[in-house]
């Protein structure tokens, strides 16, 4: 390898920045974001040596006061430039991600929502986590049908037009995969909130209560369970007890104001609020009423919780009370000393969140946080705790409790009851370690 030797000089800030910018063009979005974020402080550090600051460095200041920015000195793009609008190009790093080594095949896999970047409680439709068992089918809604049969007086078939004639309801509910966090029963290994808790989303769903449709078919008295089945290649199926349907099960065709995304079951899905996501069968095509459960593959081989004694729980439907801090988190390190609003999300499948406590010392002492905005039944609930950080180490945790009085448990408590092989329903208190330079690591306290 020959190398042209240049006179040894320390590069100027501008040269360095340009080099880093050029180099980052080849990186994946995630790497690039991380690189640029760290690169800026890197350059700032180098510049500070020469007595300069970023804002005053040549080439960086033309869009900053007192200068008139470039975008204010020209015209922008017109209407319907993007008939279906897109986020700013500067938000390109806010995307769903997967853990490639998890799965054999992306067709039967999962992706996580970037909850570290989201605000409020609603997940935008393009960022709702994905879980497929045989990929996303491309369904023509004109040829999609919902069949209701079994222990009913009048077996029925509905078109999409039929279903949309029923009086509709719209409800904000979270959706969570029961395997959320399930990679960390034995220890922490995911250095990102998106991977520790991202199998979680929350939308406003619009559709018809399933009990209205079942009433139309006339359920016979022996009808105690339903089988819900999808129109995907997996013909994904789950048994659901009638009590849930009488309570709050919906058949939905819209999310956040528009028709369901294909990834979310277009044109029709079941929604069992507060229950493990896989029971909310997507691409719903059939409901059979029966007098007992079916014990299909996704409720025996999968989605059963193996305990330490070798026996397994089944029909573990409810997503128990859970919470996690989203600021700070590994993707959102603390950037500077001083004021910080610690924020996070809490949710429970048993109703509403009553409160959230936060700890900065690994769970020795706790402080009540404030619930922000809407606090709704079986919806994500945002919490906040305003404080100051002066570079001290934090072991920061959140602990939610719900209207039933259930308090989010510690990992030690869950392990004691269940061992480490149950995969699903790990809702334990999560710990982030904040280091002296504001970086955040995933750790577990026992």
């Amino acid at each position, binding site marked *: 390898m020959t190398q042209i030797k240049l006179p040894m000089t*320390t590069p100027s800030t501008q040269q360095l920045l340009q*080099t880093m910018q050029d180099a*980052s063009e080849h990186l994946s979005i995630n790497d690039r974001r991380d690189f640029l974020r760290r690169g800026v402080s890197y350059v700032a550090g180098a510049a500070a040596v020469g007595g300069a600051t970023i804002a005053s460095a040549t080439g960086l200041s033309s869009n900053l006061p007192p200068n008139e920015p470039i975008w204010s000195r020209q015209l922008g793009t017109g209407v319907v430039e993007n008939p279906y609008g897109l986020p700013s190009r500067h938000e390109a790093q806010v995307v769903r991600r997967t853990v490639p080594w998890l799965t054999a095949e992306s067709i039967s896999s999962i992706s996580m929502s970037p909850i570290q970047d989201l605000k409020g409680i609603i997940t935008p439709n393009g960022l709702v986590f994905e879980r497929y068992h045989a990929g996303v089918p491309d369904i023509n809604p004109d040829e999609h049908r919902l*069949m209701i049969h079994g222990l009913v007086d009048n077996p029925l078939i509905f078109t999409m037009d039929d279903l949309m004639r029923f009086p509709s309801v719209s409800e904000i509910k979270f959706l969570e995969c029961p395997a959320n966090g399930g990679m960390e029963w034995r220890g922490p290994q995911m250095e990102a909130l998106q991977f520790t808790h991202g199998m979680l989303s929350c939308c406003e769903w619009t559709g018809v209560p399933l009990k209205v449709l079942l009433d139309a078919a006339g359920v016979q008295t022996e009808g105690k369970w339903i089988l819900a089945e999808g129109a995907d290649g997996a013909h994904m199926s789950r048994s659901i007890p009638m009590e849930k349907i009488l309570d709050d099960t919906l058949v939905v065709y819209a999310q956040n104001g528009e028709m369901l995304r294909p990834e979310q079951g277009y044109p029709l899905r079941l929604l069992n609020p507060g229950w493990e996501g896989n029971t909310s069968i997507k691409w719903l095509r059939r409901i059979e009423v029966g007098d007992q459960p079916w*014990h299909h593959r996704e409720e025996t081989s999968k989605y059963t919780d*193996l305990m330490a004694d070798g026996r397994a729980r089944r029909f573990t439907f409810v997503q128990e009370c859970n919470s996690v801090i989203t600021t700070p988190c590994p993707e959102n390190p603390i950037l500077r000393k001083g004021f910080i609003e610690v924020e996070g999300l809490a949710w429970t499948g048993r109703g509403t969140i009553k409160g959230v406590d936060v700890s900065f010392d690994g769970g*020795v002492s706790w*402080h009540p946080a404030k619930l922000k905005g809407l606090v709704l039944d079986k919806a994500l609930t945002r919490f906040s705790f305003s404080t100051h950080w002066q570079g001290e180490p934090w072991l920061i945790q959140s602990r939610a409790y719900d209207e039933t009085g259930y308090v989010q448990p510690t990992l030690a408590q869950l392990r004691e009851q269940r061992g480490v092989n149950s995969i*699903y329903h790990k809702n334990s208190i999560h710990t982030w370690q904040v280091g002296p330079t504001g970086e955040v690591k995933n750790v577990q*306290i026992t």
Partner: protein
Amino acid sequence: MFRSPKSTFALVLFACLAPGVSYAQDYQIGTAATAVEITGWDIDIRPDGKGLPAGSGNAVNGEETYETYCASCHGVFGEGEGRWPVLTGGEGTLSDDRPVKTVGSYWPYASTLFDYIRRAMPFNAPMSLNDQQVYDITAYVLYMNDIIEEDFELSQDNLAQVEMPNQDGFYVDNRPDVSNPRCMTDCADPDSMMMQSSLAGVTPIGHFIEGADAPAASHSGQDELEASKEAERKAAITGEEVVAPVAKEATAMSAAAMVGEATYKAACGVCHTSGLAGAPKVGDADAWSERIQQGTDLLIIHALEGYAGSEGYMPAKGGRADLSDEAVTNAVLFMVESQQ
């Protein structure tokens, strides 16, 4: 305006008409499903055998069908290829540290096997097998798990009577199973708290590995260990000989280099793990060999004072003026010794 007699009359009239307009719950929406339509879609099977089609099959015929449609993913012996589901073995492992959940060791009902093969398999061509093929494959998978005899004729009439080894291994959800009091102060003893940082390769079991539950979960930190365990596990099923993987010998690092690792991670890794700005990547032997030939001392000088080459820039101390010369030197030693 509302006091005028005319308006009052209008309101009364509206109130009288309103109930007759539409408050009916009898929507009359949808059409009757015909028996033919229902039969076409009603594919589900229950443990009591409800839903099974007429017919039968056996493992003798099932072997060839299985090898044609199933073995490419599930392995000739049901041992699972790559990360695809393991179908056989694992008996008695459910309370082990690494349980192996298969049809034989875990599934409670034989009906589930017929139902799932029919509704979802083969993975790339669901609903393509005829009932005869599904009976044959179901019988073969049960036979491979020593649940039925090879010549047993599995049928609509007897499938529900097949007893699965783990039939009684399940119970209905009994959560909440923990009770955490909402303690606010002195909730834990800081002196006895243990903290665990991220570990590579602790993935418990592969929920997303679609059935390859115990052994196949992979991670860079434990690839080797898993490869050897996987080889042993497969050998136990297939009777093949285990070839022990050759372990890579660990090279010793100097104390200074080991100290330098922390600095490397905190300051240098930004560029030197990904090769940014022309930085030689740690572990990239080609990029480092010539540099190392120039002498470690020169590399240290470049790291301390900065360097501009044809491929990129190395700012003095990587732009971290706050680092001591010793810390930078140790980090360089870490990078150099990582190549050896």
